[in-house]
């Protein structure tokens, strides 16, 4: 019996929906009925998960390191907020416009980000996010500055479902949008296109040698990732009807990285799992004492990078693989 590596699996097998995946999404939908009092938190987790998925596309699949992904989240959040504040209250089209705005900023910044090596990328992404943060901070007549953007009103979704106090509509709306984007991302990374991204991550020189148009691939994935992040930001704005300045903060970019790392990169689900763990623990610990939370967050980060490099989902995948190998060896 030969050893089956994951890369030996045919493409078709990657694309098939596995039982675990179906259970995962059904379980999330079930939150609506099982925890009707925690729907606000659940929507926030889904939004953070989508944001982490957007990071996974560039970091996990294409290997682009960034410290400033909040830039695109923030642009989407402010785009949706400003639209709604100035009369465009229809949410779904608002999402599309926010995604376009973030994609545009992503496209423009891709010229800066994709030029240098890893260190330069870290600095450039950090700088772009800091620049936008300062911009939003200074332009307080438009953005509300540190007080945040108030007076955001969102119309009923599809003209039927109004946003309510318990977050029922918010949860349903978020879940549908996030799932739709997840399906797109899943199909995309499992396509030959997605495989070429992994080739670039693993060995850019060889990828170029086999004819992968390196730069064009990276630019596209960067733009798509920015658009996804923008949708996540817009969802946050629409479900909370408020935009805080910290949508653009360094802390948000750093937290995002941490969520994805906890869950595991290049797994698609890692972002969601990481976001859930992160936000549930944060919800518990930060209410006791925010300083302790920061301390344990830092400690967690150190421990994870030392010992659990592939995150929770990655670890589970390894365990499953070992189990299959053991069974195959018998």
């Amino acid at each position: 019996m030969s050893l089956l590596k994951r890369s030996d699996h045919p493409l078709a097998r990657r694309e098939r929906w596995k039982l675990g995946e179906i259970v995962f999404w059904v379980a999330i939908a079930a939150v609506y009925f099982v925890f009707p009092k925690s729907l606000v938190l659940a929507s926030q987790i889904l939004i953070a998960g989508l944001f982490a998925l957007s990071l996974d596309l560039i970091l996990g699949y294409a290997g682009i390191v960034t410290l400033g992904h909040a830039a695109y989240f923030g642009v989407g959040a402010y785009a949706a907020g400003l639209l709604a504040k100035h009369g465009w209250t229809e949410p779904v089209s608002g999402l599309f416009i926010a995604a376009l705005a973030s994609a545009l900023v992503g496209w423009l910044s891709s010229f800066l980000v994709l030029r240098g090596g890893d260190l330069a990328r870290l600095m450039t992404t950090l700088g772009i996010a800091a620049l936008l943060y300062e911009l939003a901070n200074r332009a307080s007549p438009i953005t509300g500055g540190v007080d945040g953007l108030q007076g955001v009103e969102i119309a009923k979704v599809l003209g039927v479902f109004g946003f309510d106090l318990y977050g029922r509509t918010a949860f349903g709306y978020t879940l549908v949008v996030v799932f739709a984007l997840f399906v797109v991302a899943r199909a995309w990374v499992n396509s030959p296109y997605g495989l070429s991204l992994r080739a670039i991550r693993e060995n850019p020189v060889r990828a170029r040698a086999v004819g992968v148009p390196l730069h064009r691939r990276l630019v596209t994935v960067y733009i798509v990732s920015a658009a996804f992040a923008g949708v996540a930001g817009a969802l946050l704005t629409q479900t909370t009807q408020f935009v805080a300045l910290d949508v653009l903060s360094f802390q948000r970019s750093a937290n995002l990285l941490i969520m994805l790392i906890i869950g595991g990169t290049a797994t698609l689900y890692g972002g969601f799992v990481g976001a859930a763990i992160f936000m549930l623990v944060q919800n518990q610990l930060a209410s006791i004492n925010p300083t302790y939370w920061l301390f344990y967050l830092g400690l967690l980060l150190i421990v994870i990078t030392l010992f659990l490099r592939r995150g929770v989902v990655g670890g589970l995948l390894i365990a499953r693989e070992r189990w299959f190998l053991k069974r195959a060896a018998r």
Partner: protein
Amino acid sequence: MGPRPSPGRQRTFRGHDVTTTLGVLFDGIAYGMLLFLISVGLSVTMGLMRFINLAHGVFAMTGGYMTATLASRYGLDLFVALPIAFVSGAGLSLVLEATLYRHFYRRGPLDQVLLTVGIIFVATAIAIYVFGSQQQPIRIPEVLGGRLDVAGVELSRYRLFLVVVGIVITLALVFGLERTRFGARIRAAVDQQTVAAAMGIRVDRVFQVTFAIGGGLAAVGGALGVEVLGLDPNFAARYLVYFLLVVVVGGPGSIVGTLIAALLLGVADVSGKYYVPGIGAFVIYLAMIVLLFLFPHGLFAKRRAR
């Protein structure tokens, strides 16, 4: 964010006369010297090991808190506290290197970033817990208080002291790097690590010592900077961009490059804040992005085969 104006140089008038310009220039240079002191260790270690240490500001913070505590609680003179700050910074960097960093030299940049961001978080939390989140005050020795009139320009004695310290340390570092045997080992290891190791240089030892000196210098910079940069638990994260910018613009591993980059950045930041206060930190981020776009390998980087 950024440097505080030198006391007495608040903007009472907007005259663009020569003495004001010189004064702002001088403040910028003093500020740049601090940035240099803190960043030079980061520059050399990044050049040596290509280790992206975002937590470098933690060493500066250690020195700052050490000095502020020694000065305010035990009434120690700044001149006595500085060597202690150096030792504390060097000691902390040795401990971190031995326990954590050395496992990460061969890892990718992402792991290094995550580890060091984690260290920043832990350090920030500890600082809040021990010292509280307020700004730390510091007592300056009387010799360094007040102002000095140099050819019609009012200069703060303390900032003059900073410039002198910066020059002395630069000279010492350049001499140490260019004229001593240990300096030759560092240069060899920066240029070609593999060959240096093959020649019998213990690159890991060289790195440890360099790392400790860099951490110590950062601690001294942090201690001297309490008066100018301020000191609170968010110090390491707030000035992260500045330190990285100095290193990247100066070219990792180059002392003179780091000095020039730090001075440029210091003057640009101070004059930006003085003449166009409305846009604040905006200038620095814009400058960073433009510089990185134009010189992705640093202004003064030696082209080297990798």
